């Protein structure tokens, strides 16, 4: 890995401004039109990657992740993924269908889409998740207690130190779909 990084810096010009970005946008009565870039870092390009990095990037970027539901209508691979997620939500008894009380507004929800890749960049699976539009909730009306206690970093360090000092073994775990387990 160290060897490769060295080669990159010697044989390539490294980061440089994209040609597109160097063009001054047409001036309209002195008013500067906005560039097509949302973030300043988008104006930089870099072409000094080694071959297998290119291969990886091509694989990873080959498939575009849809940003909204309209883009996946009628697409069987995403339909399947959504069916799976709906089945899981059903099995979990996440909600029941009820009539909306008078003068109340329901918060929205949306699907988010993610293409999962293996470490070598090959396709792993199409994943969808239903998320609630939590930003539409207001404190005191839709929800009250939202504070969540967390472990302090110092506590975690002390535990690691104790493990080392006493020769214990330490286990680490991950909870899948963690936020779907909580009861409301």
């Amino acid at each position, binding site marked *: 890995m160290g060897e490769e990084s060295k080669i990159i810096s010697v044989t390539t010009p490294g980061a440089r401004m994209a040609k597109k970005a160097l063009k001054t946008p047409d001036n309209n009565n002195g008013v500067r039109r906005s560039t097509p870039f949302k973030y300043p870092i988008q104006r930089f390009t870099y072409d000094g990657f080694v071959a297998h990095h290119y291969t990886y990037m091509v694989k990873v970027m080959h498939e575009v992740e849809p940003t909204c*539901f309209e883009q996946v*209508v009628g697409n069987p691979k995403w339909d399947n993924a*959504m069916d799976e997620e*709906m089945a899981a939500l059903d099995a*979990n*008894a*996440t*909600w*029941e*269908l*009820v*009539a*909306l009380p008078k003068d109340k507004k*329901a*918060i*929205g*929800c*949306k*699907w988010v889409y993610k293409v999962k890749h293996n470490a070598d960049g090959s396709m792993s699976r199409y994943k969808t*998740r*239903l*998320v*609630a*539009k*939590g*930003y539409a*909730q207001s*404190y005191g009306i*839709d*929800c009250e*207690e*939202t*504070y*969540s*206690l*967390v*472990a*302090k970093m*110092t*506590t975690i360090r002390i535990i690691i130190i104790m493990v080392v000092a006493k020769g214990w073994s330490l286990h680490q775990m991950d*909870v899948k779909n*963690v*936020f*779907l*387990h*909580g*009861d*409301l």
Partner: protein
Amino acid sequence: MEQPPSYVDQTDPNLVCRLKKALYDLKQASRAWSDKIGQYLITSGFQTSNANFSKA
């Protein structure tokens, strides 16, 4: 919550979802999880630390 896009009940499209479990991006989601795991850990015999308790 409104019914999810493309999974709206055909017979009752006007009904809404009354959530019984948390969903991603709900304001209560992290709190709901911390309550849940806290209860589980205590019934499993763990005790809260006095110095840094993560279960109220």
